């Protein structure tokens, strides 16, 4: 009788362990331009960035809402994916989808994501099929909620 419980535990662990793809900008771009009926919240962050970590719970809370999809784009060092990024995600039980943007030519993709972005993190892109806005700043919980509200039809 121990075995079924054991297998349930294993499969649950597999489900909850998030795989984090390393993406080139060409691979990331479609995720920043999805046309559906959802509000997409894309946050650029890193595990060592204190203001980023402070606002992560707000993004996690948003991700639980209907019709909102959060994508956390890590700008951690690619060489630290195994040693820092993945342990951080498990430790904090992040549920939002996380990807690692591993692409040189930052000058190209920073401008392509938003011409007004200077490149500093934290930064957040919010869009739906009607509008898109980019914010090079950090948020309080209410500021973020109000902003996302303004994207809801």
């Amino acid at each position: 009788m121990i075995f079924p419980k054991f297998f349930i535990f294993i499969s649950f662990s597999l489900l909850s362990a998030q795989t984090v793809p390393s993406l080139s900008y060409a691979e990331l771009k479609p995720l920043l331009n999805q046309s559906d009926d959802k509000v997409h919240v894309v946050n650029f962050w890193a595990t060592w960035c204190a203001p980023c970590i402070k606002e992560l719970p707000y993004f996690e809370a948003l991700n639980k809402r209907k019709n909102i999809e959060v994508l956390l784009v890590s700008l951690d060092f690619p060489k630290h994916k195994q040693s820092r990024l993945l342990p951080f995600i498990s430790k904090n039980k992040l549920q939002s989808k996380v990807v690692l943007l591993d692409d040189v030519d930052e000058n190209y993709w920073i401008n392509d994501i938003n011409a007004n972005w200077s490149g500093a993190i934290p930064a957040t892109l919010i869009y739906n099929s009607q509008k898109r806005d980019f914010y090079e700043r950090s948020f309080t919980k209410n500021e973020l909620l109000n902003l996302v509200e303004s994207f809801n039809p």
Partner: protein
Amino acid sequence: MKSILILFSSLLFLTHNHGYKIGDVATDFSLPNVDAKMVSLAYYDQAIGFIVIFTCNTCPYSIAYEDRINALDAQYKPKGYPVIAINPNDPAAKDGEHLTDMKQRALKKGFTFPYLQDKGQHIYPKYGATRTPHVFILEKQEKGNVVQYIGAIDDSSRSPEKVSKRYVEDAVNALLSGQKPKVNTTKAIGCSIKTL
């Protein structure tokens, strides 16, 4: 009248926030160095320009560039373009950014250039620095130190082995040969500047 005042103050705010553009004359400063002496651009009478880099102690992107910044200073100080590093972070807003921390870092990494504290945080907004690291290349002219390049050191902050475009080297090489930099504005990822 009120609306004119508001318009005027928001215009002021915008100008203030935008910082320098290519061709603007950059302000000089007098800021404390890690050796406790005050440093101004005016002291460098042999220099023909400056590689001013806003960088800091704790941002991993800045740390990843330390060796590359030392290399820039080694390469260009003898040619008249010394590196001047300025830490724009408020030490009250971020641990590890006090002048004493900066001194330790400068010693540990063997910085060959001045590493100044933007005490009071008055200089970085004038330049328009928004992140660390953020580079401004100045060319000394009759009218002052003219901004000739704003942006990134190169195109790959996180993976130095993958660098293919060396923006600062290209820009200074152009200036040394009497040309304007072909690429004079670039971006890189960086850490936001820490304020209270």
